[in-house]
């Protein structure tokens, strides 16, 4: 039986203070279920019609020792009654389930911010483990904050008493208790979470489901019965005024998966996905493995080399081969990618970038594989590179990657990053019928066939798949004759083929949209040029600067290679160019190289997304200083 919650009216809406936007950060031990708490809070917030953005931030260790700072897992959500684009710079409310979580996140909470503390976890041992010299609840550390101190563990245990769960199971419900309290504080509906709990545990472990729901309700009731000390008001965040339509919450990973499936359908061919697990790319393999009914074959290969090779083999057979990884894995795929480039087979390589080099910061986000995507191959092997800029955009960027791959018979690199992969945003679900088809015409028996006959316009070679009578042919990595498609070591032919391959990729610039200005004027004092997941932060910073009367524009580049035809001209229209990147300066090199513009970098390499306020300050600083 599904549980339906009936809220007894209490507290009264009149007592709730209306705020336009709130940033909440849930932080606790990896085992405390903070990601789950955040995700559930996100679901209800989305259903309540707020605009939102989230930022899950988890440790690299799967089960770090309990109570350590490096085992702290956090989930931040920013929700508002207006259009927001980032998970927020600083939390208004921090929910800290233990001292380590407080230790790690306190520095981000502005003075006057609210901190909800689970006092039960503040034992001497935990306090010491977290690196506090004294109990922060007592030594004045929190004097400048509004604290809400609750023994969440005790409350949780009381709320599940008699349900028949073990003590361990009961303790594990404390995240639901905290969620319940936050739902009360911000007037969120608990029903979606109740539904989710029942779906997850209902059949398998009805007691666990009951206990979780009881804890959720108890947390809510705690707020409702005004057990909270005075001075902690309840809030209401009105609905955002968003475009009418059907919405869902989406992460970049889900959107890439659906985009790839949609792209393959638009091309009229099956999708083959070969991959080897790596954070944060694995989720794409998981997602696609659950979409087999849509013409998807997934293959977990023995390594990244086999992953890209299997995808190439599938493209050879007439599927769209796709492989995915993050930087280290993409490095391993390089030789395979150049094979696909030389053999001119379609292939999509999705790179969910993470902090590097080497293993780097596996769970943190970064944009440091742009060089790898644009330049990182042996020989003259230019490839189209597309970078998605929001979770929702991942859907369209993936379709675009498939379109370019099959239309131009080339590997295409699709860049996302750890932030896009994990962060959720409300997404107005598009109508797939609005996306134009790009159906493949495989070569069929004809007198004139050879595998390197090219389309005059796109310069793409024709694609004949094994199984087609009369078109038997051999391809491979050795240079082929422009005229016959056979092996050729002829010097002029190699020169010509290299030029043709480059011209083919360059020509894609005629088949992509001209660069638009995302915000601000199309000429002026300062242009902020971004790419990838920094879109939201840059856009918001520029919008705010514009509102403050500053002369600044935001340009966000989605096609990193080839660049849009008008970009050079557009950039020439600004006095100064600022390029914020979550790397040590990569797009900036490309822009300087292509357009000889005096671009300046703003580089943050912390594994964390930009803060809007930092970008605003940088804009102001550039406008006030002399170049």
């Amino acid at each position, binding site marked *: 039986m599904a549980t339906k919650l009936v809220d007894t009216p209490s507290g009264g809406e009149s007592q709730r203070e209306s705020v336009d936007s709130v940033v909440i950060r849930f932080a606790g031990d990896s085992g405390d279920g903070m990601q789950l708490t955040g995700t559930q809070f996100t679901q209800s917030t989305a259903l309540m019609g707020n605009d939102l953005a989230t930022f899950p931030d988890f440790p690299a260790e799967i089960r770090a020792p309990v109570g350590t700072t490096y085992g702290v897992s956090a989930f931040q959500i920013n929700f508002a009654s207006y259009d927001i684009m980032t998970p927020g710079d600083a939390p208004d409310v921090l929910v800290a389930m233990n001292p380590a979580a407080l230790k790690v996140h306190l520095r981000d909470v502005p003075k006057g911010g609210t901190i909800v503390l689970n006092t039960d976890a503040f034992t001497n041992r935990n306090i010491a483990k977290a690196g506090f010299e004294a109990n922060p609840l007592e030594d004045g550390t929190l004097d400048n904050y509004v604290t809400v101190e609750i023994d969440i563990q005790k409350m949780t245990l009381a709320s599940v008493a008699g349900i028949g769960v073990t003590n361990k199971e009961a303790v594990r419900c404390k995240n639901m208790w905290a969620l319940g309290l936050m739902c009360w504080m911000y007037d969120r509906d608990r029903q979606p979470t109740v539904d989710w709990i029942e779906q997850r545990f209902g059949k398998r472990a009805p007691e666990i489901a009951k206990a979780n729901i009881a804890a959720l309700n108890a947390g809510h009731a705690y707020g409702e019965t005004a057990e909270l000390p005075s001075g902690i008001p309840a809030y209401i965040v009105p609905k955002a005024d968003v475009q009418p339509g059907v919405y*869902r919450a989406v992460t970049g990973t889900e959107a890439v998966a659906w985009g790839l499936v949609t792209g393959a359908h638009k091309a009229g061919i099956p999708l083959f996905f*070969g991959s080897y697990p790596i954070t944060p790319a694995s989720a794409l393999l998981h997602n696609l493995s659950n979409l087999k*009914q849509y013409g998807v074959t997934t293959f977990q290969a023995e390594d990244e*080399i086999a992953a890209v*090779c299997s995808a190439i083999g599938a493209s050879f057979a007439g599927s769209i081969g796709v492989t995915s990884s993050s930087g280290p894995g993409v490095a391993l795929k390089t030789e*395979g990618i150049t094979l696909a480039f030389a053999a001119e087979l379609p292939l999509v390589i999705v790179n969910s970038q993470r902090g590097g080099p080497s293993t780097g910061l596996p769970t943190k986000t970064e944009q440091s594989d742009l060089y790898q995507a644009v330049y990182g191959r042996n020989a003259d092997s230019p490839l189209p590179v597309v970078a998605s800029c929001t979770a929702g955009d991942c859907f369209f960027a993936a379709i675009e990657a498939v379109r370019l791959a099959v239309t131009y018979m080339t590997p295409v690199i699709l860049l996302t990053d750890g932030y896009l992969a994990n962060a959720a945003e409300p997404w107005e679900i598009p109508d797939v019928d609005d996306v134009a088809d790009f159906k493949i015409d495989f070569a069929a028996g004809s007198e004139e066939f050879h595998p390197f006959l090219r389309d005059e316009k796109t310069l793409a070679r024709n694609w004949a798949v094994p*199984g087609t*009578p009369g078109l038997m042919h051999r391809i491979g990595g050795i240079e082929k004759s422009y005229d016959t498609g056979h092996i050729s070591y002829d010097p002029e032919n190699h020169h010509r083929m290299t030029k043709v391959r480059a011209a083919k990729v360059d020509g894609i610039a005629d088949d992509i949209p001209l660069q638009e200005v995302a915000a601000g004027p199309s000429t002026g004092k300062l242009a902020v040029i971004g790419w990838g997941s920094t879109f939201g932060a840059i856009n918001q910073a520029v919008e705010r600067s514009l509102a403050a009367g500053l002369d600044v524009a935001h340009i966000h580049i989605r096609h990193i290679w080839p660049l849009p035809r008008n970009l050079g001209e557009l950039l020439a229209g600004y006095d100064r160019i600022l390029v914020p990147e979550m790397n040590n300066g990569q797009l900036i090199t490309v822009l300087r190289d292509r357009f000889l513009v005096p671009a300046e970098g703003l580089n943050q390499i912390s594994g964390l997304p930009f803060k809007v306020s930092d970008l605003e300050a940088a804009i102001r600083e550039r406008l006030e200083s002399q170049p």
Partner: protein
Amino acid sequence: MNVQTPVEQLKPADYASDQEVRWCPGCGDYAIVKSVQRTMAELQLAPENSVFISGIGCAARFPYYMATYGFHTIHGRAPAIATGTKLANPELDIWVVMGDGDCLSIGGNHTLHALRRNVDIQMLLFNNEIYGLTKGQYSPTSRLGTRSPSTPQGSIDAPVNATVFALGAGARFVARSVDTNQKHLPVMLKRAHAHRGASFVEIIQNCIVYNDGAFSGWTDKAAAADSQIQVEHGKKLVFGKDGDKGLRLDPATLSLEVVTIGENGIGEDDILVHDETNRLLANLLGSMEHPEFPVAIGVLYCDPAETYDAAVHRQIGETLEKTPPTDLNTMLRRGRTWTVAPG
């Protein structure tokens, strides 16, 4: 009324491409390509349905000489590419051609996994115990002490035995033959082709330029009868000019020994009978090395099971049955959605 036009019989030459073959004169690869073309003609395999996928090396040039579909890929990766091709179109008849460096050095990992997964492809290893294309360095199958440009004092790392490696990887079909044995090799190729699943065939191949005569001690006509044993399922493991030598299992040490029938009280009944479904026996036979033992040629092991490609498509089929596909708009709207009404 339909008139049945007789389908024209394809001849071995019909499987040869118009490309000039560029192996060194006298290279064992010539004999192998002939054998493969002959086998395909005997089986009347459809050229448009046949695909040769290779890595890099002398052996890997193979696809260019076949009038079928072909993909000359990168060093060591042919099994991985073939896996993708087979999964994308299980109807295709795929042959993978590899050199010993290709298959067991740079590509050892992919060979291992294609075999254990049991992808339905024929994997031909041209084992010349040397790196031919890069001019003669020793390979992972080179015998200890092999002098080569990179091992002037002789190689010091123990070689891998290809058939034993394949069996260890979980291969369900393992055979061995010799390039010049044109009676035997086509039979092995046919068996490999008939086998559903990954079939691994080690073809002993003479590199006349960099490792000439590496195998002549047991492949030369004069030596063959006494130094090779042709194994056949259900038949006694006998060999020798006079057919009087055989293999016996020493139960105390679980090892094979060579015995002569009629000597020391050995009778016919003491000789082992080959059972190609016996993995342990296959390991023992594959490990036999010249000159202590005769070298075993033939199908050492064959014990089919569900192929990987069949299993992948079985799961896809099960998914389709359980959760039929919707249109894509419905796919995007699965799960929790909400509607923002106008106004």
